[in-house]
């Protein structure tokens, strides 16, 4: 569907009072729930037009942060400004410039996709005609046109999330909060959501994204803030953080398990630029090679080919949340459900899915 330019009304990104600065500024934000300190003095900035990834385990305070910044919760102390508006004293102005997509679909499940979006358009003061047109435009954009008339209840998880994003985008918010937007989605749907988020950012939105996945943060975020137990424990550009954590791990599976040690040795001794620390993991039957670039990946695979090794599988792994935590804090990630020293926390912390490379 093509829409004549200049027909859609509503708030636009031009409404950010201050340009070129921080779209979100949080200082010393504190929120208690009884004895629990969900936020314990959080400071962070999101530069206008960028994506800040807030990475942390369950119970780190990510959702509380988003709820404070979207006027759903009143912080106990500290201050926060979004698009120049104070969360505490200017909530009404602030609500005009934000969009929120939570972990749980915030659409009316009994209403169809088009009914949901039309309603939101009307609530954002679009005329009937504009609301209808904007709803259709958004359905088209999020590939929901065919399902437009079906109740949202019948949508798949991914469709619901897309409808949710579409609902958040109706008002063309200048600041968008995405609270674990892909939690519980299958990889294909997750990629769809990522593509949409990247598009919104390309169009100039400022995004605060919370996630438990390092991979998601790497895909979407310009900067990263690592939170744990209501505190910011690390922050910076993704590449800075990755440099600390050590990039990716290349895993090579030899066709013959007996060649593991020989293969690791060959990589180690080849003297490829910047490459060191290849190890054979006997239990898994793979050779692990830490790499920092795609060139190194190609070089390693090429080398093994030249030396006549038969390879049955190759994959690369981003550092898991655990590894990031280990790198920046020297301790394991804690979760809200378990004490930090709990062992075997692998099932409570999601690690990144392996990123498949040609095999």
């Amino acid at each position: 569907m093509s829409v004549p330019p200049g027909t859609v009304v509503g708030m636009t990104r031009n409404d950010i009072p201050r340009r070129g600065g921080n779209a979100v500024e949080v200082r010393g934000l504190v929120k208690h729930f009884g004895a629990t300190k969900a936020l314990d003095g959080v400071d962070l900035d999101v530069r206008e037009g960028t994506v800040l990834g807030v990475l942390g385990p369950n119970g780190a305070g990510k959702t509380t942060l988003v709820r404070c910044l979207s006027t759903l919760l009143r912080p106990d102390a500290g201050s926060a400004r979004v698009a120049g508006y104070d969360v505490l004293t200017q909530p009404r102005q602030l609500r005009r410039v934000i969009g929120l997509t939570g972990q749980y679909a915030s659409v009316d499940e009994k209403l169809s996709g088009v009914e949901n979006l039309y309603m939101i358009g009307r609530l954002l003061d679009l005329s009937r005609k504009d609301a209808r047109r904007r709803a259709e435009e958004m359905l088209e954009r999020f590939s929901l046109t065919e399902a437009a008339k079906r109740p949202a209840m019948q949508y798949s998880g991914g469709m619901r999330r897309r409808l949710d994003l579409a609902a958040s985008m109706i008002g063309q918010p200048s600041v968008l909060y995405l609270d674990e937007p892909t939690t519980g989605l299958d990889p294909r749907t997750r990629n769809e959501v990522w593509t949409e988020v990247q598009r919104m950012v390309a169009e100039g939105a400022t995004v605060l994204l919370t996630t438990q996945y390092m991979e998601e943060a790497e895909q979407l975020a310009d900067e990263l803030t690592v939170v744990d137990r209501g505190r910011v424990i690390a922050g910076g550009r993704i590449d800075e953080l990755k440099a600390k954590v050590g990039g990716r791990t290349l895993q090579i599976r030899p066709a013959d398990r007996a060649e593991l040690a020989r293969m690791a040795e060959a990589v180690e001794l080849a003297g490829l630029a910047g490459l060191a620390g290849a190890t054979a993991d006997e239990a898994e039957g793979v050779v692990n090679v830490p790499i920092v670039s795609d060139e190194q990946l190609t070089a390693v695979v090429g080398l093994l080919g030249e030396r006549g090794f038969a390879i049955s599988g190759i994959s690369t792994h981003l550092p898991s949340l655990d590894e990031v935590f280990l790198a920046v804090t020297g301790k394991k990630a804690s979760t809200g459900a378990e004490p930090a020293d709990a062992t075997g926390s692998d099932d409570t912390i999601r690690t990144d899915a392996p990123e498949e490379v040609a095999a």
Partner: protein
Amino acid sequence: MSAATIDAPVAAPAHDGRIGPRANLRHISALARRNMLQIKADPESMFDAVLMPVIFILLFTYVFGGNIAGKGHEQEYVNYLVPGLMAMMGMNIAMAVGTGVNDDFKKGVMDRFRTMPIARSSVLIAKIVVEAGRMLVATSILLAMGFALGLTVHTSVLHLLAAVALAMAFGASLMWIFILLGLTMKTAQAVQGVAMLVLMPLQFGSSIFAPTTKMPGWLEGFTKYNPLSNLADAARNLINGGPVAHSVWMTLAWAAAITLVTAPLAVSKFRRKT
């Protein structure tokens, strides 16, 4: 979305973020439309409004009617009962608002509404508008059943409409109580449980089903101040003829008092709810 739409003109928002009365009305109607679409998507939610009047009028007419008006005189009881049931119907429909609000809050959609530039009260007012519609449906069915069973209006159609309007006004004020309950209690079941505890004595300790003159003195005293008695008496005298001033004013006073106390509490609770 093309770049051109991003730079589209802005719908001149009031810059202090205040919501004008016209915008407020538009928001309420958009939200009321949502509530109506919910009913359309789930017609079973109308069962109570449609079936309750039918079952109640049949049950009470034939179980109590003979005892109160004398065997064979059930028809005469209908004129006594129907205005009473109008009061009861309002209360029962109003009760559904509480569970509805409670349910709504469990869904993320409330979060969306509360992060949008709309008056937070508009979500609740829209709910009340649509529930008032349901109340009107129930009352219409009640009256239709009443007429089928021999209800006669001794005054005029205008008096009858006034009775309906009075019942609706009172019912709407009750909705604020139940909204407040719905926002306070943890589960919809709990709302229903508490509501029933309050409703039973109010309904039966009133002049809804039977004249209060044969009740013990203390209970008769209670019924005099029971707003449901006031409403039932007002509707009864509007339909059957009789002095209406006292009961009508009492009902209106109750409705106003209930609204003035509970509506601000409900809105503030709604605002603060996490």
